[in-house]
């Protein structure tokens, strides 16, 4: 009996030794030096993040690194990230956050530079090519005073959506030429945009492209809710008109004649919009386009997949996409969340491997096919995507003329002040001049002692 027990113990010990050695071999595998590490990543719940989540098993198989991906709506995600970094809890290795927070993150040492990692050959993934990253995107999203801190995650850019079927309709073309004296084409400047908006605004019962309208139809729609959507849209007009927030030297130009003209123009579009402009964010704008009640709008390109989805859109296949009309400057508002490695990341090396993997062409292409936009030139020029996605070419063109928001630490509060003042103008409580004067005064208070800003 004793012998049997001894034999059993010996057998178990041998099994343990054999499997233990094998397991140690996995841990010590040179191709997977960080196997067994768990990365904590947090990002906004958007199509690209969901597309990424589906591919995490591949990453885990490839590197042995486990990823705990936490997702949520914007305010929650940003709040959690800020709290984690401020309290130096080390809760997240990788954070995804809108790029306009970059200045705050750098000034407070909340994130770490990724430049040293680019030189680390021991951490390099074979299928990651730094040169393939779109340089402009990386600079806008993650570069601060010559140092790289992050790589864009969910990028998007504003383009013009227009009803291709209406703009190409011979009857409409003839009527437009008779009224305005030039050809009806997707507008290239803001005067044409206004004309087109006025032309297509019609009451129920009138005819549109040979059919009788059963409900009112509108030339355009704008985002007028006290919301990020409004400031994002209006900044296109401001930049295009030659205005903006700061000039190149960092002086405040918010109360400039160009901005006043841009704001007047923006508000004067309201009569050509569906009623209730002051409740519109990008969501309402997308719905209005999907329902086929507007002819054009300035919109984020990541809303295009919803417009092209036949199960939820009446106009799938009927919408054209092009760059935003021009007044003085050709512009397109660039928006992006960016992956950063937090300063107190418990596993920065593994986090860098994750960032590289996210930016490989295989991963990026799958993200693109699920409604996201890639960060790599090779994927952007992928013939399959160019042919398959109608908004692809316009997005490519827009990225070439992209403009971005200031990324200074005060921008978040400045943006909120801008929302309030623009909302006053949309509601008719203030005129453009008063609102911009008040906004300038709020900005001067927020930036006291820091003007002109030395870097944005």
């Amino acid at each position, binding site marked *: 009996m004793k012998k049997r027990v001894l034999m059993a113990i010996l057998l178990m010990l041998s099994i343990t030794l054999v499997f233990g050695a094998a397991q140690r071999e996995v841990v010590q595998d040179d191709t997977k030096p960080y196997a067994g590490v768990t990365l904590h990543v947090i990002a906004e719940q958007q199509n690209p993040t969901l597309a990424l989540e589906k591919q995490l098993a591949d990453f885990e198989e490839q590197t042995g690194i486990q990823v705990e991906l936490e997702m949520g709506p914007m*305010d929650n995600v940003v*709040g959690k990230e*800020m*709290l984690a970094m*401020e309290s130096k809890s080390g809760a997240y290795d990788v954070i995804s956050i809108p790029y306009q927070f970059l200045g*705050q993150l750098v000034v*407070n*040492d*909340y994130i770490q530079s990724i430049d040293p990692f680019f030189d680390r050959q021991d951490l390099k993934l074979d299928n990651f090519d730094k040169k393939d990253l779109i340089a402009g995107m990386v600079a806008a999203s993650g570069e601060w005073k010559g140092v790289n801190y992050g790589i864009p995650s969910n990028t998007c850019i504003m383009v013009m959506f227009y009803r291709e079927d209406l703009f190409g309709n011979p009857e409409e073309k003839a009527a437009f030429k008779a009224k305005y004296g030039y050809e009806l084409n997707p507008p290239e400047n803001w005067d044409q945009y206004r004309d087109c908006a006025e032309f297509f605004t019609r009451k129920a019962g009138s005819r549109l492209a040979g059919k009788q309208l059963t*409900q009112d139809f509108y030339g355009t729609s704008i985002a007028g*809710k*006290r*919301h990020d959507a409004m400031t994002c849209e209006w900044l296109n007009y401001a930049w295009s008109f030659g205005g903006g927030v700061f000039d190149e030297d960092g002086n405040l130009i918010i109360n400039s004649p160009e901005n006043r003209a841009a704001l007047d123009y923006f508000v004067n579009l309201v009569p050509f919009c*569906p*009623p*209730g*402009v*002051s*409740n519109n964010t990008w969501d309402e704008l997308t719905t*209005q386009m999907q*329902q086929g*009640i507007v002819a054009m709008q300035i919109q984020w390109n990541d809303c295009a997949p919803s417009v092209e989805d036949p199960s939820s859109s009446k106009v799938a296949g009927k919408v054209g996409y092009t760059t935003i009309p021009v007044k003085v400057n050709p512009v397109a508002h660039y928006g992006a969340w960016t992956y950063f490695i937090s300063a107190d990341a418990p596993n920065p090396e593994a986090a860098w491997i994750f960032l590289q993997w996210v930016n490989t062409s295989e991963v990026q292409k799958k993200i693109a096919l699920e409604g996201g936009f890639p960060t790599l030139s090779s994927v952007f020029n992928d013939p399959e995507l160019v042919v398959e996605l109608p908004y692809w070419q316009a997005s490519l063109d827009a990225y070439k003329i992209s403009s971005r928001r200031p990324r200074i*630490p005060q921008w*978040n*509060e400045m943006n*909120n002040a801008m929302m*309030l003042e623009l*909302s*006053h103008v*949309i*509601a*008719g*409580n*203030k005129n453009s001049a008063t609102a911009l004067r008040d906004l300038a005064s709020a900005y001067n208070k927020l930036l006291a002692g820091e003007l002109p800003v030395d870097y944005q």
Partner: protein
Amino acid sequence: MSLQVGYRQRTALLFHLPAMIILTAITMVPLIYNIRISFFGFTLTQSGSRDVFVGLDNYVRLFTDHEYWNSMWVTARFVVCSTLLQLVLGTVLALIIHYYGGRLHRILTSGIMIPMLVAPLVVGLMFSFTLNPQFGLYSFLVDVFHLGLSKTPLSSGGTALAVLILTDVWEWTPFMMLMTLAALRSVPMEPYEAAILDGAGRILIFRKITIPFIRPVVSVSIILRAIEAFKVFDKPFILTGGGPGNSTEVIDMFTYREAFVNYNFSYAAALCVVLFILLLCAGILYWRLVIRRQEDD
């Protein structure tokens, strides 16, 4: 005997202890922490700001902040209008059901209670769809019945606040009704019988018997509703985002914006402290003026 009482007290204390510990942990500790950080310059976007003592700076800023005073004014209008409307409608509904409900009173009570059971966030979303100018029921009714009303009530400051008040009234009138109905049910029959024998009219009976009997319950309901109305957040957040302009930015939205959009935690904490003191004072005042007087009567 005294030993027994001591034992009983100890047992009672023991049973109460878990609740007291939990309550202290989830209410008193955050409250004290909140008061503490209101004297600091804690903002999430500035490393190390957590420990920067600023004294009364946040309170001084608050009293000179136009946005704060605007949100207090919006909140005050919201609280007064919605509570008053709920009081009147709730009492009328309760009286109708009490005196004329007959056999249907149970069904009527249950039916009227439905809005109260819906989560405030869902109420906001529901009204947001109902008021959608293109696809909403409201716009459809305005067209069909040629009501001559604005199809975009949320686009103008005055009507947007009115819509918020009405959504609150829609949701919480049943609460007022339920409380008043319960109070009406508990009124003893004897005073009524005596009054009828003495030849008193209906209005006199209502004024002299019904109102004094239901007043304590209704008074408490008013204070409960007013406090809840002061804390309204979900509906303006969903329906208007505080706009147009800042015409519907109630105090809780303003505080939320400062804390979780601008990340000025200390300033938001100071806002909460002032709100807490104001509500406490209002509560005490109301207690002394209304409820204690009733007890004295």
